[in-house]
């Protein structure tokens, strides 16, 4: 009799997810597979997390991400508590992150944390223990300043996988703010683990990819990169074009922000030089870097990306809680697709 395949995400129960570096490639593949399953088995999974409570602690505004985390839990049959905005939280009275988390850990089964300070999610994960039971309460990083945003990267991966059926053998262009764009860094670092990716890094001189991220590409035996300032010159080579917003909040000097904001604007004219099956991704919200007329182009994948974000959060929340999706067949060892996970 065949043994059921091992679920690579089984070992994630109770674990916090602060960065994707702590997830193996098989675990990421398993999460992608779970998200696909959830998409096609909405009714079956609707009570997966019944009785569970997710706390969404958002110390800075991010409507899209918060609603995505909350909808994910509600669609799994769980419930949601939380706050949005530091002025509403005890932090306005001077409470530390650790104390807030220790308190919430006695109420909730899982915490999604968004915080403007880099490293806040790591602090939270170390404090997240239910004082009554001694159990660890998983913390999912919903963005810590300009540092990490792992669930955004999961949404990016799901969208690329959905469009191409693979996460390798692709030419991936990343365009805009490659200095401060955390989603870009995380996507590059994660794709490097799958391998066989050619990156085209498109940015103004002032917003080039940091050296430590480029080092990661160079350390991969199968990945390569080129840097350019000219989007039009390279758009025809790309399978994926990942656009980013120049984020005002990352600049200390408003003049620099205004000067660099409009460097790249993707419109139908530029898109006419791209391949017919290229996928345009964007972590959203956009300002003006993608013209609205691109939205109707079949290559626009950014709203699909939003949906995939919710599905991946459903996969992640159920996995860290250890709630099995009814009827789900794990990928098991087959989840270890061709990849270049040299850090494992």
């Amino acid at each position: 009799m065949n043994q059921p395949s091992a679920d690579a995400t089984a070992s994630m129960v109770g674990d916090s997810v602060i960065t994707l570096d702590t997830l193996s490639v098989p675990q990421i593949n398993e999460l992608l597979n779970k998200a696909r399953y959830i998409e096609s088995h909405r009714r079956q999974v609707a009570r997966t997390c019944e009785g569970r409570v997710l706390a969404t602690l958002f110390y800075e505004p991010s409507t899209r991400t918060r609603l995505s985390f909350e909808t994910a839990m509600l669609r799994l049959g769980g419930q949601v508590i939380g706050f949005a905005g530091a002025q509403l939280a005890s932090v306005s009275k001077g409470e530390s992150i650790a104390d807030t988390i220790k308190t919430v850990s006695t109420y909730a089964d899982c915490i999604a944390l968004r915080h403007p300070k880099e490293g806040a999610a790591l602090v939270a994960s170390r404090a997240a223990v239910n004082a009554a039971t001694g159990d660890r309460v998983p913390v999912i990083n919903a963005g810590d300043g300009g540092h990490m945003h792992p669930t955004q990267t999961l949404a990016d991966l799901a969208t690329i996988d959905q469009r191409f059926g693979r996460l390798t053998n692709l030419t991936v262009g990343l365009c805009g703010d490659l200095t401060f764009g955390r989603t870009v860094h995380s996507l590059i670092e994660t794709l490097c683990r799958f391998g066989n990716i050619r990156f085209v890094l498109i940015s103004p001189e002032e917003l080039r990819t940091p050296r430590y991220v480029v080092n990661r590409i160079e350390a991969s035996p199968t990945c390569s990169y080129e840097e350019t300032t000219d989007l039009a010159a390279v758009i025809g080579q790309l399978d994926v074009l990942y656009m980013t917003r120049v984020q005002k909040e990352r600049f200390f000097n408003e003049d620099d922000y205004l000067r660099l904001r409009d460097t790249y604007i993707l419109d139908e004219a530029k898109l006419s030089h791209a391949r017919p099956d290229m996928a345009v991704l964007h972590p959203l919200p956009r300002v003006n870097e993608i013209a609205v007329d691109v939205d109707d182009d079949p290559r626009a994948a950014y709203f699909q990306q939003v949906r995939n974000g919710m599905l991946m959060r459903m996969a992640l929340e159920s996995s860290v809680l250890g709630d099995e999706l009814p009827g789900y067949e794990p990928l098991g060892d087959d989840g270890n697709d061709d990849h270049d996970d040299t850090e494992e």
Partner: protein
Amino acid sequence: MEVTSIQNGIIIDHVPAGTALKVLHYLHIDPAATKLALIMNADSQQYGTKDIIKIEGENHVDLEALGLIARQATVDVVEGGVIVAKKHPKLPHRVVNIIRCVNPRCVTTTERGIDQLFHLVDDGGNGKPEYRCDYCDEEAKF
């Protein structure tokens, strides 16, 4: 100026020239409360110039903290006026509460009661090692 030999203590030799005070700071040695001699910018056959720190009455030094800032230094342990042991600093893989993160957006700038934690990313060969903050991944400046 007369600097007498120490009887029981340590001699930290081959300290990079001009950094002796910084070394004391990293080693949490208070020069106002310790019997010590600093020799700065002394001639060195190996490095051209060097600093030397002699500490009376101290027989322990944090070799990992010393390795962070003066990896080429040597530590002579002196007992009864005689060098009885020679130690070499180790490059630490983890640095706890010795240096502070310089990133103004790092959580360590606001959260109370947490350790300043860094991890070694690149030992730098014979050059300067690279450490990054555990929390925000900012490169350590020291």
